[in-house]
């Protein structure tokens, strides 16, 4: 002990190097526990090589021992040495989150729409889990909040529905898709006639327009000359089965009537649509999304703002 003590208190060891004449470098020994720590990390590395994939050998590598990951593929159990991809497969099948989601999914799958809509807990789940689904599959056209794009993609957050706004209708739309078609009337109508019909259409939603044009337009709209009433009905309220727009309310999805302040602008907007027609496609999601995903999306879209 006394020898050790003198060492501790004695002169400081240096490496013996000197720079600029007097700058020296201490050469203090390490504490023993530090050295042990170093040896321990070497031992750890060796154990790691044994347990995990580590060393390249020829065209392969050591795969590690005692550390297999087991998961199920097509009903048959498979086991691989440790690797992140197998970990992921396992996590997606039996991870904590996967099980929790599965449990909720089953609850939602077993419930009917009325039950889901009435249960705040299930609704909170649907809203959070479906946000990703909607973002991946629907938001590209309809926007991440479902507001759509004027003239191109309908707004899903309002209470006007071309193909019906009940959850069942929405499910039907997502599953099968729709083709929204209105022929162009460029050849059928003269420019004057287009003008008349446009005025009549605007009058349906309460716009103040000259009565003579409305009268002429109405004749074209409800008569065989235009035949508009086939799809839009004589009252202009539209038909769910045709996906034809309700022209009597304040919502415009193709002609940007609201974006125009002057009546002439509104008329032009409507005229353009009548002249060129409409051809829009909502793709079918059957096959791309499974039944339950479509169910979730139906509820989600219904809840975006105006479900009926």
């Amino acid at each position: 002990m006394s020898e050790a003590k003198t060492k501790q208190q004695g002169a400081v060891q240096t490496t013996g190097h000197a720079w600029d004449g007097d700058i020296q470098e201490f050469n203090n020994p390490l504490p023993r526990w530090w050295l042990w720590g170093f040896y321990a990390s070497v031992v750890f590395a060796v154990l790691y090589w044994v347990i995990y994939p580590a060393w390249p050998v020829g065209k392969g590598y050591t795969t590690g021992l005692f550390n297999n990951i087991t998961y199920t593929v097509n009903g048959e159990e498979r086991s691989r040495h440790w690797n992140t991809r197998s970990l992921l497969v396992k996590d997606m099948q039996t991870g904590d989150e996967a099980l929790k989601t599965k449990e909720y999914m089953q609850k939602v799958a077993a419930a009917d729409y009325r039950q889901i809509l009435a249960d705040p807990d299930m609704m909170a789940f649907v809203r959070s889990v479906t946000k990703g689904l909607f973002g991946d599959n629907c938001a590209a056209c309809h926007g991440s909040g479902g507001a759509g794009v004027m003239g191109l993609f309908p707004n899903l957050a309002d209470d006007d529905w071309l193909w019906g706004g009940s959850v069942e209708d929405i499910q039907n739309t997502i599953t099968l898709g729709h083709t929204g078609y209105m022929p162009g009337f460029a050849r059928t109508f003269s420019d004057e006639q287009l003008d008349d019909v446009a005025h009549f259409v605007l009058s349906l939603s309460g716009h103040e327009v000259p009565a003579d044009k409305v009268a002429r337009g109405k004749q074209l709209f409800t008569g065989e000359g235009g035949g508009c009433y086939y799809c839009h009905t004589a009252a202009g309220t539209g038909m769910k089965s045709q996906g034809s727009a309700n022209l009597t309310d304040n919502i415009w999805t193709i002609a940007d009537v609201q974006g125009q302040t002057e009546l002439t602008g509104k008329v032009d907007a409507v005229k353009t649509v009548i002249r060129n027609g409409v051809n829009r496609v909502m793709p079918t999601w059957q096959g791309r999304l499974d039944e339950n995903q479509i169910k979730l999306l139906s509820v989600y879209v219904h809840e975006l703002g105006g479900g009926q």
Partner: protein
Amino acid sequence: MAEGTSPELYHARIPIYPRSVKGRFRTLKWGILALAYGVYFLIPWLRWERVVGIPQAVAFDIEARRFYLFDLVVHAQDIFWLAGLLVIAALLLFFVTGIAGRVFCGYFCFQTLWTDVYILIERLVQGERVARIRLDKQPWNGEKIAKKLLTHLLWLLVGFWTGFTFTLYWGNAPDLFLAFFTGAAPFPAYATTLFLMFTTYVMAGLAREQVCTYMCPYARFQGAMFDRDTLIVAYDEKRGEGDAGRHKIARGFKSKSDREVDGAGDCIDCGYCVQVCPTGIDIRNGMQYQCISCALCIDACDTIMDSLNWPRGLIKYTSDKAQHGEKTRFFTAKNIGYGVTLIATVVALIVSVVGHVPVDFNVSQVRQPLFVQMSDGRIQNSYEIKINNKTDRAVPFALEIDGLPSAELDKRQKQHLHEQPAQSLSLLARVRVNPQSLPASPAEFRFRVRPQDDTELPILEQSAFFHSAGNH
């Protein structure tokens, strides 16, 4: 490095065999130790009546994200209280250190407390300092093996119970106890217990003072909080060394008056203060970074002085200023500053804890789309609303809006929201209004949550904005 010698690969620990001592400070330290151990080891077993949650006075329920402290339930959202507590702990440490030096290290640090117990075990099994040195030197025989084995086993046992007790805080102690010993406890319980058992054994049994001198950052930076007024454990050099230095009790050096003749100081160089030191230093060499201010050397020296009938205080708590004949001032600007900040933080934390409302209410407007035109011409805004009921009973709430006279609130769910105890609820609320009735966009209004039973819960309000097309 001496010429010709090979460099040392490591610096071996010089074994320290602290001798036991009795005295004021040792008694005080045993008292603190008993209190600390009592609190730590018994608290998890204290039961507490609760409607919801673990019926345990102090429990940390990670899964439910709730901490139970007697009648206080701390939720994850209240995590800033923890920050407040840590700030208070830090300030208290600075404050105490500024005045009285390393009080924490010497009396309260768990490294010191557990090391004390481990040394006690060592002494009970292997005997006093001299016996332990002899035991270490003697060859391995039955006696040595038995004593060493018993010591380490007892250390491991204390370590195990320490780790296990820590685990008990994170669950319901009786259940966990049963599950633990029937092999049914969750893996983290075993891992935590074994890990803490191992670290306790290594830190308090094997590493001991090296933790303070090599590992502990606090030991190294508290020097920054010291000044000349700070209390330190110090040797009275003037008295102890006299004019001619310390001298052992010998012929002609027995009484005070005899020693004065030769100029010898009061230190009789018995070495007791060095032998009791848990970090193996000699306090007579002055202030050293290894000194944890445990004051055992004071007890040792006082014992000797008492037996000689000389006045105590050859080693004592003093300050650098006092040593140089100046007056020690505790109320320095630094200490007052620490004190004021400390009190302010404590008050702030108490106000926050006492005044907290056990219901969270949060409104955020749906941004995409910000507003939607409805078919009847009205404008609709949607709001994501979260109500978190942190009380232990079901509370019916009513959600209302205020500030938009002609508006319609559509909650889709029922008018009254029955919130289950300790649960949160999130819902979408929609507000529809005729844009003509709005003065300007955005229009400000309020959501209000009103408890529907005769509770003392306050009515909560959250303001929201209303947007519409046209004038924005």
